[in-house]
């Protein structure tokens, strides 16, 4: 019964027919090609979960440091105790020789060493400044940043204590001493993501970046393999008029379990090579392409829900913000499909399409201005960053999900992504038309 329904659908005329036949063609292909299917299903699913899992311990704690206490006085002891009590740090070992410290740093047993000099107590008792030295492995930027702020706050507390005690000894009331020590206090407040939650900061932004990469790869392969296998003409004939009836041909090859059967070599046996140029209709091509990318679009719409479901529940985010972000993410996915297709179709080569896709999408997170802020990116690189759709999506993502900005602020990005998607889709259709007119260039590897 299912089969007759299928026959009926694939017999439909016009644009809907082209869409349905193309989607059916793609479904049969994906069912037979586990690698391509996994790019649509398992790999993105596993990637989303893996990234979330990597950052499941949302804060960085217990970074190993060393202490070299040359003073051994009571205040130096307090300093070591404070360092140990800080949740971001853990004092791995007390060192006695600089050589041992250096070796430990080079072997990455510790990422920093706090050195308390010999005359530390003496300086404090004689009311002189008694500096403490922090040597930190600045090559490991994340580690170093957290160690610096943590040690700074520990030593700040220690210093305030010493100072206040000194003032109290001079006869000041303790409450007054605290004010005298620091006449203008600072309330430091982090708006949004106050807990410095790395899952919110990194995982929630890396996931869309990875889905974007995967979607561009799918965009390149879905149309690219038809070019490589010289099947794009037959695909077009099929979606336009249902001739040749590829449903039955493919059903026959279904028994042949080989993956290789779908690659160029074997295809030439299974299908009749047909290299005549075609004058394609843009509207049929558009419907056909939408049908061809129907399954990835459906799947990536689901993965987008998963990505946002993971990223959103931490705070009460307005439903309108979530909707705007979701629309933005789905648009980014569709735009990625078309961009991948465009790279392949302009070069007539799946390999070249994948190379360009990888070259542009893989480092796009570095240009997106999340880890290294956009304002600090060099001026020339800013143009590149502006040209990447991911930059704009992540701006929307952070504004809506983390900064709780009003939706209106991010709507221009949604409009921009919509426009870009529509343009890219038409461009992909036009380039497909061109590809169909040049069969002599099919089959490039």
């Amino acid at each position: 019964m299912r089969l007759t329904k299928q026959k009926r659908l694939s017999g439909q005329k016009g644009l809907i027919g082209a869409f349905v036949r193309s989607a059916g063609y793609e479904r049969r292909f994906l069912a037979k090609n586990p690698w391509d299917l996994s790019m649509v299903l398992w790999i993105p699913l596993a990637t989303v979960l893996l990234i979330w899992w990597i950052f499941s311990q949302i804060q960085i704690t217990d970074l190993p440091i060393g202490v070299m206490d040359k003073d051994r006085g009571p205040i130096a002891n307090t300093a070591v105790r404070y360092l140990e009590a800080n949740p971001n740090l853990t004092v791995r070992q007390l060192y006695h020789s600089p050589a041992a410290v250096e070796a430990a740093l080079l072997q990455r047993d510790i990422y920093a060493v706090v050195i308390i000099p010999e005359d530390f107590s003496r300086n404090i008792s004689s009311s002189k400044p008694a500096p403490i030295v922090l040597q930190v492995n600045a090559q490991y930027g994340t580690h170093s940043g957290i160690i610096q702020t943590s040690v700074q706050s520990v030593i700040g507390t220690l210093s305030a204590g010493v100072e206040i005690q000194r003032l109290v000894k001079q006869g000041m009331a303790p409450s007054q001493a605290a004010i005298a020590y620091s006449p203008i206090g600072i309330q430091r407040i982090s708006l949004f993501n106050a807990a410095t939650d790395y899952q919110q900061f990194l995982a929630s932004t890396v996931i869309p970046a990875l889905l974007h990469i995967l979607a561009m790869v799918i965009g390149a392969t879905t149309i690219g393999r038809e070019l490589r296998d010289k099947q794009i003409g037959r695909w077009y004939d099929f979606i336009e008029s249902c001739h040749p009836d590829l449903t039955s041909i493919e059903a026959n090859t279904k028994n042949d379990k080989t993956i290789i059967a779908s690659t160029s070599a074997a295809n030439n046996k299974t299908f009749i090579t047909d290299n005549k140029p075609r004058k394609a209709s843009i509207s049929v091509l558009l419907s056909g392409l939408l049908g061809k990318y129907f399954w990835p679009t459906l799947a990536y719409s689901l993965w987008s829900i998963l990505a946002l479901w993971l990223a959103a529940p931490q705070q009460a985010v307005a439903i309108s913000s979530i909707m705007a972000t979701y629309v933005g993410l789905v648009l980014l996915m569709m735009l990625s499909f078309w961009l991948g297709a465009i790279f392949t179709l302009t070069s007539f080569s799946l390999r070249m399409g994948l190379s360009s896709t990888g070259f542009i999408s893989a480092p796009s997170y570095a240009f997106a201005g999340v880890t290294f802020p956009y304002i600090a990116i060099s001026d020339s690189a800013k143009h590149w960053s502006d040209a990447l759709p991911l930059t704009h999506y992540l701006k929307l993502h952070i504004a809506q999900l983390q900064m709780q900005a009003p939706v209106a602020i991010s709507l221009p990005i949604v409009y921009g992504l919509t426009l870009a998607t529509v343009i890219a889709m038409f461009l992909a259709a036009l380039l497909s038309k061109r590809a169909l007119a040049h069969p002599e260039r099919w089959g490039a590897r």
Partner: protein
Amino acid sequence: MSMLQKEPISAKDSTLPEDKLSNTPSDSKDYSSQSFLHSFVQTIKDVFSDKGVLLLLLIAPIIYGFFYPWPYSTEVVNHVPVGIIDKDNSNLSKTIVRYASASPQLDTKRFLNEQDAIEAIWSDDIAGYMIIPSGLEQQVLSGKAASVSVLGNGGYFLLNKNVQMGFLQAVSTVSAGVEIKKSVAQGAYSATAAASTQAVPLKIIPLYNQTEGYGAYVVPAVAILILQQTLLMSTAMLIGTWYEQRRHATSIRGWLGRIAALSMFSFIIGCFYYGWTFELHHYPRGQNMLGSLLFLLLFCPTVATLGCVFGLWFRQRERSMQILIFSSLPMFFVSGYPWPAHQLPEFLQIIRWLIPTTPAINTSVQLNQMGASVAQVATGFYALAGLWAFYFILLLLFRWRTPQSKTGY
């Protein structure tokens, strides 16, 4: 599906791609006796006659050497746009504003109220702001507790840090000035008073990456990742292409020859990174050059061997790119470099060692940027040697399970 499943090969006519991938149609000769040297030379010839492999193996990593450091060329984050809301409008508050404006870390703008400032944050015009409450000067002068508020955008960690540190320094300086004035008024000499504002000052000495540049932190590690990914994909592409042409089979010596040839290309690129890219961007480099070269000598064949395994697994020219392009970011995050390894879930802490970059990134940075001795990074070398052996065994398994030629099927 078992990855080692034997596949029936349908009779095929090897329609070779247009771009002259195959040079010798006489490839059906006996592979079992292929020598190391012959295989080595043949692989080099094939790399140069296959523009797809050449692009990935040699040209892409060279372009990346310029492209990837590009956004970070300013290295440090300065002149972060911030807002100031001065509700006090006193001499003291004006001094604070002046100090904040003079800070190289900040680029200040005045706002009249908090709503305007928040809206500026939402549209990314500023990264944070400071509120100076009304009556600040009065409170300070009468010796009451007083404070200003600094609000940074926690959505961007690095910006937030800059906002907090920039304002902290400005306000502390002014605060210390107030304290000194008071002490002097109470009869202390101003020199002693100034010195005693911080009883225990902290002196921070950044080691290795002394300028604390962002590119200097991230690029030396990513360079190793780029090396791995381009070598993996190009190797798997070449082997996959050979499989399609049924030229994949060879002796164990032949495989070693292929691995040696492919590693050689990446070794040269590695030298290019160590000697040229890092130099060009003034990153810390060459602290232990001999150790770094030894590392490349082990790392490149390890990755090339894994690439051969992938080639026999994927069995198709373009498959390696399709499957591996996305993997760079996850591999980087489990390497232990940007994110401390002990923070990872325990299971990931173990399986991450199956990826070459896990020991490789740290080993390379320790040798080349930090100047560790080879003995100090011995664990990394052992891990890479272990991986190489493991991948080679996998390769032998795949070799054994993969049909050697079309005859016999």
